[in-house]
């Protein structure tokens, strides 16, 4: 009867089973797997704002930073005080993650309400500015390590946690958009004046999109902090936001399956090029080219944008139709 919920539960069980074997995974691949999961959360949540609602936000890393620092602070300050307490390390981790998400959502609300009056480039500039403010604030907060960064004592993030949140993000975004209520997000993107005239409170929709996206970005930040065990303000700068926007654009604005695939592809690609560059069988000249992998990576992005400006996985392709046929 209730298909989306069944799928969610099935997927969570599958990930839980897989996570039983996570200690057997090579640490390098494990790192890539977690990064993919975090990038999926970031991409899919930003897609709600930039893709479905059509508001160009360039500050997603800022929300990530809020979540990362807030959750890290909770872990760092409470772990010694709760030592052996009733909650345990995992309980504290969950509390820290949720608090990080809520903190980011609140920040999203505070930033969104005034700035969502702006459109297009102007909104992009305001969100960009906001992201920089967050970064500078953390850089100058000595209690959180300031520009030296902050170390987190425990590594709590695992496969299960990451992919549970990723599944929840996809679930929330997809179900939100695929309902009569959710059509409102798309009308805001298509034509704000017509949407208002059809009785749609465009401001409310924009703020909801912004807050939901910020919430998940905050949780992604918490997962990141408790995985790398070290966070630094520079890690949440403008370039990080651009990385996430690239995932959304490459996947196709307002195309969740596409964004998931783009998140996977864009995480693997630089690593794959690294492996290729170290491959002995390759001629030396070719290896030298591949070893400059960031140049090749950027070139690939340019080529992709020139040939598929609507996104890698958007449009009437057979693959997209197949994905859409799956009820996504």
């Amino acid at each position, binding site marked *: 009867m209730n298909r989306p919920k069944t799928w969610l539960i099935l997927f969570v069980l599958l990930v839980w089973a897989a996570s039983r074997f996570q200690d057997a995974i090579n640490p390098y691949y494990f790192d890539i797997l977690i990064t993919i999961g975090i990038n999926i959360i970031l991409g899919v949540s930003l897609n709600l704002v930039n893709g479905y609602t059509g508001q160009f936000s360039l500050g997603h890393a800022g929300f990530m930073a809020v979540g990362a620092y807030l959750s890290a602070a909770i872990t760092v300050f409470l772990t010694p005080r709760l030592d052996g307490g009733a909650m345990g390390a995992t309980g504290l981790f969950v509390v820290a993650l949720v608090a990080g998400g809520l903190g980011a959502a609140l920040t999203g609300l505070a930033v969104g309400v005034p700035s969502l009056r702006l459109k297009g480039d102007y909104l992009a500039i305001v969100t960009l500015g906001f992201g920089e403010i967050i970064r500078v604030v953390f850089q100058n907060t000595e209690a959180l390590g300031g520009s030296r960064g902050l170390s987190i004592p425990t590594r709590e993030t695992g496969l299960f946690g990451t992919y549970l949140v990723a599944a929840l993000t996809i679930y929330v975004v997809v179900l939100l958009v695929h309902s009569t209520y959710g*059509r409102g997000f*798309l009308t805001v*993107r298509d*034509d704000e004046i017509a949407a*208002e005239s059809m*009785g*749609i409170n465009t401001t409310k929709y924009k703020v909801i999109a912004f807050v939901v996206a910020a919430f998940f970005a905050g949780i992604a930040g918490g997962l990141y902090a408790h995985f790398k065990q070290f966070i630094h303000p520079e890690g949440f700068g403008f370039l990080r936001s651009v990385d996430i926007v690239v995932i959304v654009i490459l996947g196709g604005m307002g195309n969740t399956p596409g964004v998931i695939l783009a998140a996977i592809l864009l995480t693997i690609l630089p690593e794959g090029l690294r492996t290729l560059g170290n491959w002995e069988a390759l001629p030396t000249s070719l290896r030298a080219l591949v070893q400059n992998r960031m140049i090749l990576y950027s070139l690939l992005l340019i080529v992709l944008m020139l040939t598929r400006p609507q996104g890698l996985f958007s449009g009437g392709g057979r693959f997209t139709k197949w994905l859409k046929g799956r009820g996504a």
Partner: protein
Amino acid sequence: MKALLEIQDCTVQFGGLKAVAELNLAIRERELVGLIGPNGAGKTTVFNLITGVYQPTAGDIWFDGKSVVGRRPYQITARGIARTFQNIRLFASLSVFDNVRAACNLHLRNGVSHALWRGESFHREEQEVEAMAEELLAIFHLDHLRDAECTSLPYGDQRRLEIVRALATKPKLLLLDEPAAGMNPTEKQELMRLIRFTQEKFELAVLLVEHDMRVVMGICERIAVLDYGVKIAEGTPEEIRNNRRVIEAYLGE
């Protein structure tokens, strides 16, 4: 019968330009009123005024017993005023069905939590909306295009879809902004029939802005004429046809 919409001494000023000056206009329930005037007379401004896109510099607007001045457009639509646009503004990325469905949002009881939980009340309401949208599309003979992209529709069908979408908000007053623009004589005949049918079937008041005299004279019970933002005449089609000031405004002295 008391007036459904009452515009009282409304003025809209853009800098030094008075787009609409001290306009008085009343529309009764289930009345079909035409608003005409030469290009730039302020007809569309009146529409934007009623729907809350512009705020009046002076004056007041009453709808269904309450003032709508200072309300946002979506709030005014919720009170029961729906509109179409001079240059068609459908939701381009949505299908025909979704265009209508989006407009059903207004009367939705469910919100974010229902959409996420997908409980029984969500499915029930979702079915209600689907049935209503499909019924509306069927009335206007668009049901066979249900899943088509709305931008792929012929011009006349897009105009009709805009009316269907407006009706999905369950209005008491429907504002039509130049629905006959760009239509050939046959399509115009069809449009006149459609407007009269809509007005009777849904028991609406209709305010029609139109350039085409044959359409306006053919279906309106009452016509108001604007020129340079000032109402220069109001009356039955017969009276307007023979009004000296109207003829001067259109043809010059």
